[in-house]
């Protein structure tokens, strides 16, 4: 993918733009090339671009003034949390201000009686759980970057994690927001109570990938940490049996805290790396975690074990200690770095499919692997159908990155073809932007872009992300009416 050529009329005004930002945030403007370099990409590091300038505001008022100034001066903005997006959500633009929220790093209020916490958006996901750990609480969504990713970024991307089948994505754990609109207005939505009145603005803002506004405060719900958690490790000689076992667990009425699958290449890469005791000859591995009171976990573990046997598991182990449970997970959690050990580079894809189509999708993915001449390893949030194929390639070999991208696009097309979606948790960003028409028709996309126009009519926020073509808002707003004749000549009336 090519990044756009920066608009020279903006670049020539750089000095005055920097000056304007310095007046608003005197100690928070980064304009020197060496210092800006850390901002030249996000987690999708194949795409690199120096920002026009970086501004790090400290207060909501500063954010509002930055947005107002950019609106007045016709300058675009790329919002950025911790910069861990895997889809290029905060990839800089050469003619846009990167607005980093890292200085909003304070926990403002912990309210255990109402089971919620109010924090600034730059607080990391894991820091929220740490702050309430001693009281037996935690914040449920756990993206694998949780030690680094910020809660504001989690809201922007509607981040998930391995436990979201049972505990939901960010959207389902969010109670309130403060946000600055492109008009410079500050709005508050929700709070420590549930359900906002009127339209569900918080619902559409969550996962909007920095296109609608800048989040300046977040209230999340806290959950009581489960008393116990245990995991079952199951190996299968055939991925189809593993798929059938997943369906059987759900059909038996069990919603595990986590239900993960790895295919043969992923098992072997992970085992070589962390020695978790995975069955290296297996075609598929399942990790099923149950949590809750010990008596409940014991009951459900017994049922899962019996379903594993009935579906032909050739390896079956259940954790008896916390160390063992963590060891079962160690391989899965290290799957990405493990892929990094067996290949110089990899692309991590993120589609969701209806689970029943899994065997077919894995088989066709092997076909695509041969066609593109690149290896693929699969890790899979099996409980909710979220696939993470890791495409292995070497960027130093001419053409391999492009082949890997083409392979990835084919996988996502396959996901949509079988009734799934382009992205389960990583977001569209730049990475999947041009595939949006594979999943959505023209009117579907136009309706989404009309929402963008209601928030940001000049397309100042994160332009070029998520939607493949920009339409002028006036054009999108036209009311197209054809005909005008009465439908149903024999209209039933009552």
């Amino acid at each position, binding site marked *: 993918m090519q990044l756009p050529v920066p608009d020279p009329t903006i670049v020539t005004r750089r000095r005055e733009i920097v000056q304007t930002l310095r007046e608003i945030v005197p100690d928070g403007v980064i304009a020197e090339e060496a210092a800006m370099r850390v901002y030249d990409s996000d987690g999708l590091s194949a795409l690199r671009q120096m920002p026009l300038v970086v501004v790090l505001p400290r207060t909501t008022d500063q954010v509002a003034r930055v947005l107002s100034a950019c609106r007045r001066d016709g300058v675009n903005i790329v919002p950025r949390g911790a910069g861990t997006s895997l889809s290029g959500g905060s990839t800089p633009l050469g003619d846009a201000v990167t607005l980093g929220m890292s200085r909003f790093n304070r926990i403002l209020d912990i309210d255990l009686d109402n089971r919620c916490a109010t924090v600034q958006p730059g607080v990391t996901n894991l820091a929220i759980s740490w702050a309430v750990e001693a009281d037996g609480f935690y914040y449920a969504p756990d993206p694998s970057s949780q030690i680094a990713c910020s809660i504001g970024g989690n809201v922007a991307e509607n981040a998930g994690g391995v436990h979201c089948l049972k505990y939901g994505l960010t959207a389902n754990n969010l109670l309130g927001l403060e946000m600055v609109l492109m008009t410079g207005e500050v709005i508050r939505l929700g709070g420590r109570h549930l359900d906002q009145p009127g339209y569900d603005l918080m619902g559409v803002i969550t996962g909007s990938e920095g296109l609608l506004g800048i989040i300046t405060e977040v209230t999340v719900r806290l959950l009581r940490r489960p008393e116990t958690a245990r995991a079952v490790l199951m190996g299968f000689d055939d991925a189809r049996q593993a798929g059938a076992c997943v369906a059987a667990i759900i059909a038996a009425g069990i919603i595990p805290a986590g239900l993960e699958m790895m295919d043969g290449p992923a098992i072997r890469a992970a085992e070589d790396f962390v020695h978790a005791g995975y069955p290296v000859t297996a075609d598929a591995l399942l990790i099923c975690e149950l949590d809750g*009171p010990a008596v409940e976990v014991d009951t459900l573990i017994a049922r899962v074990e019996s379903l594993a046997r009935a579906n032909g598991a050739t390896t079956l182990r259940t954790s008896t200690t916390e160390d063992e449970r963590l060891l079962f997970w160690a391989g899965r959690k290290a799957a990405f770095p493990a892929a990094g050990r067996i290949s110089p580079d990899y692309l991590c894809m993120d589609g969701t499919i209806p689970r029943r189509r899994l065997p077919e999708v894995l088989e066709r993915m092997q076909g695509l692997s041969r066609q593109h001449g690149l290896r693929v390893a699969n890790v899979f949030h099996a409980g909710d159908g979220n696939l993470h194929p890791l495409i292995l390639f070497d960027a130093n070999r001419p053409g391999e990155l492009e082949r890997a991208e083409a392979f990835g696009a084919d996988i996502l097309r396959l996901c949509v073809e079988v009734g799934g979606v382009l992205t389960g948790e990583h977001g569209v960003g730049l990475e999947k932007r041009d595939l949006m028409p594979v999943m959505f028709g023209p009117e579907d996309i136009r309706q989404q872009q009309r929402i963008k126009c*209601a928030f940001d009519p000049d397309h100042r926020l994160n332009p070029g992300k998520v939607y493949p073509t920009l339409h002028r808002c006036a054009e999108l707003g036209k009311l197209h009416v054809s*005909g005008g004749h009465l*439908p149903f000549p024999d209209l039933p009336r009552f």
Partner: protein
Amino acid sequence: MDWLTPTDETAAAEAIRWAAARREPLEIRGQGTKAAVGTPVKAAFGLSLTGLRGITAYDPAELVLTAAAGTPVAEIRTALSDAGQHLPFEPCDLSGLLGSEGEGTLGGLVSAGLSGARRPFAGACRDHVLGVRGIGGSGLPFRAGGQVVKNVTGFDLSKLLCGAWGTLAVLTEISLKVLPAPEAQATLILDGLEEERALSLLRQALRSPADVSGAVHLSGGDTALRLEGPPESVRWRTQGLRDLLGLPCRTLDTDASRDWWDRWQRLEPLQADPDRHIWKLSLVPTQAAAVARLLRQADPALRAAFDWGGGLLWLATSPGLDGAHLRQAIPPGSGHATLIRAPAAVRAAGGVFPPDSPAVTALCRRLKDSFDPAGLFNPGRMA
């Protein structure tokens, strides 16, 4: 009123294009069971979605059910129950309060965004709407979201349409996340607790590891805590919760427990006096008792029922207690109140839905314009 009654999405879109060409406002309806909620709509024509009916896809192992918007909720409940599954958000049934027949349609349920007792623990209606098909004010069908349980592709329009009372777009098809119904349940009932004390106990239970899935206090009546799950787990947690509360209480086993929560789901404790106004208040749980106490000074006959451990307060008020006065009892930023039942003349005067800041109100108007630029759908209903 003249009703347009399409039987598929194409005909519904054609009906909307006809209305758009004439700038003819439409009242959008399923079975009309919740038509008495909101500011009364002034429209000469109605668009009924009851002709779009039927479950189009349901594979229990996928945890997804897709149905046409006009499908009766009862039909969906039956299909789920046959597969041992349920609607996790436990939508409350307003028909008893509103004097309507049946629970209405899926489209109506989602448009009203109804959730029930399990909402704080399992999520709201909007958390379970995975995707929709709908038609905007220009008569063009669109889809949003997907039919899988995990999806972040594009803006989540489904959530915007949930709870929009048919003012943004006409829903034609909805995909819901569904879950296995718990095998067993039990409810602890404590009698005759004073309000403040009862709410404090509910919060204590919610902070405990008991994994409560229902926490209700009916003023002057039952205080109820529900536990759900495998039978072994329910038994264990019930004992733990009894020990924690340390008060005499009755335990309802699975069947009796289901009956209790079914009655609550129909809001039976609020149905006694049909002349009272019914209000629904979403509150910071620790402030709920104070809000009720304050309002009782103005309306001593007030009947109160707390759900969500205090996060939801249902009130049956004397017609003399006006909405502005009621809303003043809620500390700023601590919640909001919606009028669920009142005579049409009262609702026509406005104030059914809570007011919001000028910036949010203006943003909502722009969002309305983005879906329905000519203002055809349910004009004024959320005013």
